[in-house]
């Protein structure tokens, strides 16, 4: 498609960034050499700890010194070594010739200054324009990044904008002075998938129109396939592979790249629902939950938010149902209401025919062994002061199992989830994120539940670990005949582990059915938008089909 332009916009030569003496690695970036051509988008992909963000920050010399600092190499921009510039020359470069977009637009903007004023500051610092001219330029920029009502937005504060609007403001700021290079550090990671798709489209469009070079940092190969001209893969501070997007995605050279690409969950449903629907193990009927709005003690009054609105759904015995939705859709509240962490306002929940909603804690206790949960954050889901054995054995001990027997069972469970049985005597902090998530799964299995609710169990994990955990969950489910309610924001993950899917938006279910059917022909507008927004969908669904090792259902092969 695009061949590297003859004149590079930026050349990184042998860049080495040292980490402080107390960290477990000596270098965040080690001897990295990379070129970004004019008018191209270069994606730098890597998992957490790959040094990709540190590399990006060192270009603008924004490293959190004095501990993290560049110790070797050159960064050539327009023939000059950026690392050798004096402070005022560096400042002149920042925001005008090279600008940057950050991951979390909420914290990246000053909360006490209007967004108009913050954008204006770029012109104020770098140009001689008067106030009126600057204001006109800001308005033009806001229109350029498709912000609604620029006049009103100019005087708004960051908290009054949506996440997508805030990121548009950041992009406007980055574009203000037509920089030669824009560094975008995971600019869509904090956004919902539909917003992400819009921002990616906007970035690509602006990049083409202005002919800017973009260095785009991401962890998501889907995003890469949407936006990149070329890709560089980083691992533990070193460059693994660099090439065109097609080359790297279709025929990766390095083993690591291949493993990473393979680990991206496909959009092609892996499980096809068998014709006959089995009897339901979980029945949710007309469940609603409203937050706030009550006039509480001392007249506190909040806006009522209907988090979950009249939800009715069923999970078939031995089946796995995905609840898919963006942030604020109410999917997590639904999960909490079902398992009794929250009390629903109305509606009933039946597990295997037995009503479990509206029970007291004591009445619920014997039923706990039938329904368990796997949590999102592997670093918050295990008590740091308890041994792994105690963590896993807690449920069985409460159900009346002798402690020694429960510990023995914990050892077996650890073996089952792929860990050493000796792990029972260790503490959570000795394990990695993926290993902790395995411990969390073992804990859920300890009481031999019929149903497991998994609340975004892989969204905090790196893609390669994510794949392993998903496969473990899937294997265990089939092996142990479990049923599963799987909460996720990621359609690709849903496709990987669930036969059925419901799509939630603003507290209501907008569409439901077998995963394969819905993915093949979504009926509801929102489902269509959601599927459309999946980063790299054409690559995942089509081009990559050839390398995918999953069975492809005939219904969606086209």
């Amino acid at each position, binding site marked *: 498609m695009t061949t590297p332009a003859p004149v590079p916009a930026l050349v990184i030569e042998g860049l080495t960034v040292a980490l402080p003496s107390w960290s477990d690695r000596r270098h965040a970036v080690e001897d990295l050499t990379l070129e970004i051509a004019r008018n191209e988008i270069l994606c730098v992909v890597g998992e957490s700890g790959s040094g990709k963000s540190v590399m990006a920050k060192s270009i603008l010399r924004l490293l959190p010194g004095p501990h993290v600092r560049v110790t070797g190499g050159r960064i050539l921009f327009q023939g000059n070594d950026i690392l050798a510039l004096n402070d005022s020359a560096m400042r002149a470069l920042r925001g005008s010739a090279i600008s940057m977009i950050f991951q979390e637009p909420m914290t990246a903007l000053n909360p006490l200054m209007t967004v108009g004023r913050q954008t204006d500051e770029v012109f104020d610092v770098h140009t001689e324009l008067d106030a009126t001219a600057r204001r006109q330029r800001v308005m033009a920029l806001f229109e350029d990044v498709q912000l609604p009502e620029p006049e009103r937005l100019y005087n708004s504060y960051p908290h009054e904008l949506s996440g997508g609007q805030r990121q548009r403001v950041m992009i406007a700021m980055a574009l203000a002075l037509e920089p030669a290079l824009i560094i975008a550090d995971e600019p869509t990671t904090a956004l919902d998938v539909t917003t992400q798709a819009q921002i990616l489209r906007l970035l690509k469009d602006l990049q083409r129109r202005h002919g800017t070079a973009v260095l785009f940092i991401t962890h998501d190969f889907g995003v890469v396939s949407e936006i990149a001209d070329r890709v560089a893969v980083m691992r533990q501070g070193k460059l693994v592979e660099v090439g065109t997007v097609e080359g790297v995605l279709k025929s990766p050279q390095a083993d690591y790249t291949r493993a990473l690409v393979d680990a991206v969950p496909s959009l092609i449903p892996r499980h096809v629902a068998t014709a006959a629907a089995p009897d339901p193990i979980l029945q949710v009927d007309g469940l609603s939950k409203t937050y706030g709005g009550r006039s509480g003690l*001392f007249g506190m009054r909040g806006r009522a938010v209907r988090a979950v609105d009249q939800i009715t759904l069923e999970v078939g015995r031995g089946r796995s149902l995905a609840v898919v939705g963006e942030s604020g859709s109410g999917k997590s509240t639904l999960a909490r209401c079902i398992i009794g962490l929250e009390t629903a306002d109305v509606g009933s929940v039946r597990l295997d025919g037995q009503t479990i909603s509206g029970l007291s804690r004591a009445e619920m206790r014997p039923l706990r062994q039938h329904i368990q949960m796997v949590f999102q954050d592997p670093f918050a889901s295990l008590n740091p002061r308890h041994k792994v054995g105690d963590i896993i054995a*807690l449920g069985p001990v409460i159900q009346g199992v002798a402690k020694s027997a429960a510990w023995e069972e914990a050892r077996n469970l650890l073996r089952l989830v792929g860990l050493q049985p000796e792990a029972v005597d260790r503490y959570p902090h000795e394990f990695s994120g993926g290993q902790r998530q395995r411990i969390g799964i073992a804990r859920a299995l300890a009481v031999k539940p019929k149903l497991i609710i998994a609340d975004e169990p892989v969204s905090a994990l790196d893609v390669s670990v994510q794949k392993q955990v998903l496969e473990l969950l899937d294997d265990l489910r089939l092996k142990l005949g479990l049923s599963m309610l799987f909460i996720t924001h990621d359609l690709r993950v849903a496709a990987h582990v669930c036969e059925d899917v419901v799509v939630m938006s603003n507290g209501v279910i907008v569409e439901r059915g077998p995963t394969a059917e819905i993915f093949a022909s979504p009926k509801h507008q929102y489902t269509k938008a959601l599927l459309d927004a999946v980063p790299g969908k054409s690559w995942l669904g089509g081009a990559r089909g050839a390398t995918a090792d999953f069975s492809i259902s005939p219904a969606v092969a086209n």
Partner: protein
Amino acid sequence: MKSFQQRFFGDIRVIAGLSWLLFVLVFAVFAPFLAPGDPFAIVDKPFIKPFEGYGLGTDSLGRNLYGGLAHGARATLFIAVLGTVAAAAFGTLVGAVAGFYGGVIDACLMRITEFFQTIPSFLFAIVLVAILSPSVPSVVIAIATVSWPPIARVVRGEVLSVKQREYVLAAVIAGQKDLSILVQQVLPNTLSPLIVTSSLLVATAILVESALSFLGLGAPNVMSWGFMIGSGRQFLRDAWWLVTIPGVVILVTVMSINLVGEALNDALNPRLAAL
């Protein structure tokens, strides 16, 4: 990364602070042996200058200044620590219940806590001691009454954040009872801010105790540092050391506690300290 012990005991603030506190503690514990006799007893003529007799001289009534300081260490530390322990116990109870149960209970308890934080606390302590009539228990009660709100707020904040963590939810799902969850899952993970806040409150308690004693609201017949300054203030012009020496002792003690408390905080939260 260095271990907690290395970070804590390698800190110059801790070395300096703990050395002084240890010194004071020795006097507090062994006062009857290091300065035998009644600190109120008249031993010689008044206004003997420091280093000219009895170590640090005598006060306006001819009482031994050194003996007063030694016994004062005992009284001041005892009252301050006791008051803080009472405040920590009560504050933890209020904070833990408010944070854990939330809702109306939380709203009520926090309004009460805020109320006690808003009212002029030292003035309240004065009124309380005056009405209860000055004695060791009433001073301890006064100190506890004015010190518990910060503890309650810190504990509540921690409990609120810890109880949202998924391991607590996991315990709920496992069917653990509320009290067990609070004691086994939540409270152990709120200990470090509680310890830091309490240690800093001991310093405040010493200041409150000495101010009360200075105003003549200390326990009668108990020698304390604040009382020594209060009884020496009339003679500021002629015998400045009667005020200066106990004041320096209070200052250095309070400062030592603050230094150790802050170093403890930094050692427990190494990431913040790196800033």
